[in-house]
């Protein structure tokens, strides 16, 4: 199976990886991130903190690896032989890849993480018992656990600060797993609006917080099933396969103009996020 399976016949793909009895689902939410446009400014990460009520854990816990950034910018220094101020870096915005065949979903003992029919890997906080098997099995390590009781004992949002919490999103308590939801609260509102007007969600009608905040518009989000959507077009243009050799050569050398990949695609989780950049064989 290739990337085209996801693009062209989502329902059929879901037939192999069933989540529900919905035969023809009109939505498949997906993302594409243009790494050539990403400047690593972290605005997406900040927006995510604000939108999704993420606790700011402080320096000490951050250094312990207990940060709660659903959206994180991974920075990789170029090995170009230059010293720090001149040294180049590559950035990789990383959030839950909303895998279609998600490794986290099958292992949860209580079924707290599930696939929605429209392709979002959802997390049910009330059901989670905190076994952390999902995180153990996530190849991207994009699941974040509430190691402390942030809202109460840790008092991350003291009086008045709690006025800035987003009322559409729950504040998670101690001992549950959480992760990027593709801003499911916004998606749901848009879907409900569309449904009440008897239509489908238009492209661009729903934006994720990170997409909204991105100054270079590197992030696109939309419905992959809709052939007119920006995401669909980007995925369609960059119809890359697992065989990456086509991208490591220029067109004159027998390669192609394609750029794009999905991270760790060889593990076959079918991630829903496409990164647009040419695959190179070596670091810069």
């Amino acid at each position, binding site marked *: 199976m290739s990337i085209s399976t996801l693009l062209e016949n989502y329902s059929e793909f879901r037939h192999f990886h069933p989540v529900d009895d919905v035969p023809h689902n009109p939505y498949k939410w997906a993302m594409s991130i243009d790494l050539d446009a990403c400047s690593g400014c972290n605005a997406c990460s900040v927006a995510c903190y604000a939108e999704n009520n993420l606790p700011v854990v402080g320096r000490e816990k951050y250094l312990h690896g207990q940060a709660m950034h659903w959206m994180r910018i991974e920075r990789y220094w170029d090995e170009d032989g230059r010293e720090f101020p001149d040294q180049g870096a590559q950035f990789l915005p990383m959030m839950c890849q909303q895998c279609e065949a998600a490794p986290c979903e099958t292992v949860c003992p209580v079924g707290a993480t599930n696939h929605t029919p429209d392709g979002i890997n959802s997390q049910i906080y009330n059901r*989670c018992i905190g076994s952390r098997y999902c995180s153990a099995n996530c190849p991207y390590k994009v699941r974040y656990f509430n190691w402390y009781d942030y809202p109460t004992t840790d008092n991350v949002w003291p009086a008045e600060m709690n006025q800035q919490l987003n009322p559409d999103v729950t504040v998670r308590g101690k*001992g549950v797993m959480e992760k990027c939801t593709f801003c499911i609260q916004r998606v749901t509102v848009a879907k409900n609006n569309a449904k009440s007007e008897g239509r489908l969600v238009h492209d661009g009608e729903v934006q994720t917080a990170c997409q909204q905040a991105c100054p270079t518009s590197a992030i696109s989000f939309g419905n992959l099933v809709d052939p007119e959507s920006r995401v669909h077009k980007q995925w369609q243009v960059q119809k890359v396969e697992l065989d990456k050799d086509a991208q490591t050569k220029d067109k004159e050398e027998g390669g192609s103009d394609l750029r794009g990949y999905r991270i760790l695609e060889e593990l076959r989780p079918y991630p829903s996020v496409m990164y647009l950049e040419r695959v190179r064989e070596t670091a810069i």
Partner: protein
Amino acid sequence: MKDIREDIAWAQINKDVLKSLENPRRMYWVILFIAIAMVGVAVGCEVYQYTTGLGVANFSNPHVWGLYIATFIFWIGMSHSGTLLSAILHLMHADWRKPIYRFAEAMTTFSLMTAGLFVAVHLGRVWQIYYALPYPNMRQVWPNFQSPLLWDAMAIFTYLSSSILFLYVGMIPDLAICRDNMNPGWRKKLYTALALGWEGTDRQWRNFRVTYLTIACFLIPLAVSVHSIVASDFAMSQQPGWHITSFPPYFVAGALYSGCAAIITLFIILRYVFKFEEYMTMGILKKIVRLTFAIAMVWTYLNLIEYAAVWYGHDQAAKDVLIQKATGPYAPFWWAMNFCGSIVPLIMLFKRFQTHIPMMMAVSILLNLGMWLERWMIVAPTFSHGYYPWTWDHDQWPSLVQWGIVFGSFGWFGLLFMVFCKVFPSVSMYEVKEMVYHRSQATKKLEATGKMAAAGKGAH
């Protein structure tokens, strides 16, 4: 060297074993006190962790599992030898197991109970633990039957309940002996209730034998499947260093290995504490040591197979984890595990050491240290060296809270075990009598044939 003296009177057996319920050596109270102190440490750590959050155990994003899961596997593994001794050797008619199977069976039950506690300690929201059980409910919300953790929960529950049943059923004739020999008091009432009116009639013995054999047959596949399922927690995942097909047999071998080593340790302790020198003899120790050595070699083989499969496989990530184990921050523990697991058992080859009590005590503890390290080396390095560089975290170490709870679990096990041995007969009286009887009959027969042969008769 005989496994047991063949001229012990039956009344003497009763007397010796019943004495263990009343006046053990002073060492018993020392061990019990140390065990309680260790449990105290663990309870303190757990209270702190429960009220503050799992963060105090120094878990972090890649390191979501730690010593709790490693020690959980260790205790599950420990539980396997009771079944090996009492069920497998029972079916194979190896009668030397008879004086020692009772405490091995108790070890199974109590190590399973200890392992169960680690599930609770590990969970983020332990108060919702019943979500993992398929209990009937109005909203028809079921657990996820695909998850190896759910299989774990079911397998362990089944194994625990069956091994408690096995332990109890096997004890009924002995409980009747206790009942008949006790002065009135709470003990007498307890034994009377538990002995279920056992009188030793032919019919009771017949039913008893059939029941015991049935449970034994039921328990053997269960024991193998429990640890295979624990292995599936790792083998079914997609992580480098875990996604290995040979894990289930490897885990079962490791389980039998650590269990046998623990039997040697407890054998030596019980023998001294309860003055069981007549029953837990050097001949039997020699047999368990040889059995342990054989299992150690099976484990070593499967361990090397695992390394070879990873090394010659095409999975670069898994190979990196293996290299990381041997050279990274976990290297001292990894090498110690290989040393304790594969080199130390070679001491058991020497006949002189097979019955050398201090040496066997040291060896058995080292073997179990190695097996505990093995479990830790399965769990932790995979987290420290995941699929791609951003997820690498080589400097996260378990905090004192984790160490305290792991430390205390040994005390908890010791506490349960020691209390059991004081309340219930830890040597099976009726089976030792059988053993003595059969052995002496066999000797008589042998002597008779010998005499006949000497007299020139029966040469054909």
